[in-house]
């Protein structure tokens, strides 16, 4: 049945090229664990190492206490859902779902019952006698899901299963996957580079970059307390400001380059007086106030529930090379709508600020977790 996965210091090399230099991660029994990261960071590579389609050059992977490095893929009892669905075109929907069960020496009645049940769960009973070429993308992905779950795998592995679907179907399938996974209670590793998908579906997310895990945490934690600048900008938008720490008898504060000071009580010990830092503010954490950071509205995009402004700050206040500095105004609470060219004072919400070391490698707030 479902297992925990222990990944201990695994290494992946292609010739001289090291793709994964040594990665350690535990995945809990029954959770939906997402690997998120930019293209080429090694998500697929890691997933295929768990599946047994890629060799492991160092370290070990365990299912519960069993080391699986040398177990061939077809004996690992995994379920896999592919980006391309990989439905067997020569078999009907039902035969596709039966495929794995038939290899498992079950009686005819057992097979029939299991297949009937799973077709019901993923809601494709009515298409069971069709050939896959006549199914839509979403239906094909349901077949793939059913086919991989029906064998009761130890782990379910999914590599960007939704990326070939259109936006609306993607959201629908997202919750279908989530529901089925919870219903069956199966340890799942899910690969995506769509952050919204990751945030909405996962129990925990591991953010990867160049073969290394940057942070593992629940979606809410990842978003509100990113471990470093990479996580903070990769997931959602973050506006990055230069600043320094000010430490007085009354407490600590961060000071923006223009002198605006925000008192903070959750800075860690490390934050000493005068320390150079990067202050990160989410676009939705600004509000229009008397006091705050002065800036100019450059562009304005109306998005229905929100208005997105891009802001102009003096260059010395900002970290260089940012695509834009943004403020998104929730129309539900907006008292004043800005126009392009307006000068405005924005106050960042002190509780929601994140403060990083000047090289961006660590968050120096006290309540940050690297691995949750």
């Amino acid at each position: 049945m479902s297992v925990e996965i222990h990944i201990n210091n695994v290494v992946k090399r292609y010739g001289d090229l090291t793709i994964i230099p040594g990665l350690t991660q535990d995945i809990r029994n029954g959770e939906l664990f997402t690997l998120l990261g930019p293209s080429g960071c090694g998500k697929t590579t890691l997933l295929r190492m768990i599946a047994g389609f890629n060799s492991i050059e160092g370290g070990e992977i365990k299912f519960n206490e069993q080391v699986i490095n040398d177990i061939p893929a077809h004996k690992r009892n995994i379920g896999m859902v592919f980006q391309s669905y990989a439905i067997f075109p020569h078999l009907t929907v039902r035969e596709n779902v039966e495929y794995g069960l038939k290899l498992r020496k079950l009686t005819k009645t057992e097979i029939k019952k299991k297949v009937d049940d799973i077709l019901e769960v993923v809601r494709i009973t009515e298409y069971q006698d069709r050939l896959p070429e006549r199914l839509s993308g979403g239906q094909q992905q349901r077949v793939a899901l059913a086919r991989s779950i029906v064998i009761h795998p130890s782990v379910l592995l999914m590599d960007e299963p939704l990326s070939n679907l259109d936006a609306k179907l993607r959201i629908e399938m997202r919750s279908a996957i989530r529901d089925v996974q919870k219903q069956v209670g199966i340890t799942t590793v899910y690969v995506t580079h769509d952050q919204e998908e990751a945030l909405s579906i996962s129990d925990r997310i591991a953010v990867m970059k160049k073969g290394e895990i940057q942070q593992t945490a629940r979606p809410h934690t990842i978003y509100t307390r990113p471990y470093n600048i990479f996580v903070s900008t990769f997931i959602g938008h973050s506006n990055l400001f230069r600043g320094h720490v000010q430490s007085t008898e009354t407490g600590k504060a961060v000071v923006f380059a223009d002198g605006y000071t925000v008192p903070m009580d959750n800075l860690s010990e490390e934050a000493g007086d005068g320390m150079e830092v990067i202050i990160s503010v989410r676009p939705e954490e600004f509000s229009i106030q008397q006091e705050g950071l002065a800036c100019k509205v450059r562009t304005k995009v109306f998005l229905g529930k929100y208005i997105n402004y891009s802001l102009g700050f003096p260059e010395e206040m900002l970290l260089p090379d940012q695509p834009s500095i943004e403020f998104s105004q929730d129309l539900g609470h907006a008292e004043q709508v800005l126009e392009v060219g307006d000068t405005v004072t924005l106050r960042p919400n002190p509780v929601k600020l994140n403060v990083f070391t000047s090289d961006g490698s660590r968050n120096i707030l006290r309540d940050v977790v690297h691995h949750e």
Partner: protein
Amino acid sequence: MNKKLFKWDFWTGITILSIAIFGLFLIYPLFSLFVSAFQNADTGAFSMENFVRFFQRKYYYQSMINSFWVTTCVTALAIVIGTALAYFMSLYTIRFKSVVEVCIIISLLSPPFIGAYSWILIGGRSGILTQFLQTTFHYDFPSIYGFAGILLVLTLKLYPFIYLYVAGAMKNIDSALIEASESLGCSGIRKVVTVIVPLITPTILAGALMVFMNAMADFGTPMLIGEGFNVMPVMIYSEFINEVGDQANFAAAMAAIMVIITSTIFMLQKYVVNRKSFAMSSLRPMQVHTMKGIRNVVMHALIYLLVAVSMIPQIVVIYTSFLKTKGSVFVPGYSLDSYRTIFESLGTAVSNTYIFSTIAILMIIFLGMTVAYLTTRRKSWITDIIDTLTMFPYIIPGSVLGITLLLAFNDEPLLLSGTAFIIIISLVIRRLPYTLRSSSAILYQISPSLEEASISLGASPIKTFFRVTAVMMLPGVMSGAILSWITAINELSSSVILFTGATKTMSVAIYTEVIRASYGTAAALSTILTLTTVVAMLIFFKVSGSRNVTL
């Protein structure tokens, strides 16, 4: 999965099997051929004397010049006829276009030497047309024997290659290219020369190579209709058959020369095509126009005439097979005598043909699919070697392959000559490369994730191959295999060297019957072959769902 240095599994077995087959039945015989080509017939010492003898005596080297000359003419004529036909068939409405196409394909697939033999029946010394012209008009029909006959028969037989290749390429020309050239002020014949011709040149070259190789290697046609006009395959054959022993070294030297010629041409063509090749795909194929007035009539007349001339051999053969015979002479009236004779005395030839080619095709299908899998999905230096080995049969003429096999397996411990096995293996060696190439192309279309899905569901890699990969490859491989089967039942040039009384096939029987001048039985046998070919072709159309014949 830690890679073990050596793991004995199914794929290792296939690797060894394919290397063994190609090594034992292709490379080793070829190697022996070259060795004996350089040996003195009496002492066995290394010598160049066989080659010296070849190039010193006009009688011998003339055959090489003849081969070159007739092959070049055939290729040039086939290019002109095939390209023109493809051009008009693709761009203009032709009535009964599919009938025309089917006829062209039939004449391509029909037994190669039937053409020669029926043109003899028509225009030979005692041919129908010759006698008719002589008795009624006292006109002496020009001799069909020699150069002219070979040229006529081979051109009519081989222009369909060019037609099929070029018609395929024309479908891939996007009409936007033509429109672009027209918008730049280019029209009429200039448009054809500056746009269409360059676009189809690589295709023409590919087709030309097929024509050249086939014409160069053809044995049956020049043997029957060539008479005094000696060409290399015939020369090699007669030197080899006449005096085995002493002459084997000399025949080997001639065969070696021929292999060198064909491989040079092969390499030259590859070089030119690689430099000129580009990918074409069309969103909107060129439009089909309707030609008006007298030009339309002329175009139709020419096309129908060409098809009629191409079909004459089959019709003549079928017709003569029903003529009454006495001994081996035709007498007035119709009968089924010829067929009766076949089933009385040549029944084994018929059954041999079907049995040998079917066994060969089954082996080809199995090896084709598994070896293609090895070379595309399990690439390594060993599979690269296999890949290279499988290119060899392209450049080895059938009669040369026959001789090499006979030379290599004529002695203990590998005494295989005279067995059915050696004929089957020669069929396998000759056709496997084609199946391999098409199987690899099919495999590239099948996503590896289908195989991974199957493995993740618990099927071992080998089970996955048979349950998923092979099943998905089969339709494509099957339709290729049917074409291979057709060429196998019609194969003459290596079987004619390898056969013995018990392993005679239909094409060999036709050849020997024609040599014995029993035209009736030869015609009946040819009719059976032609009918089988047509039936197999119809099955091919059904299985593949298209008329895309690639040989």
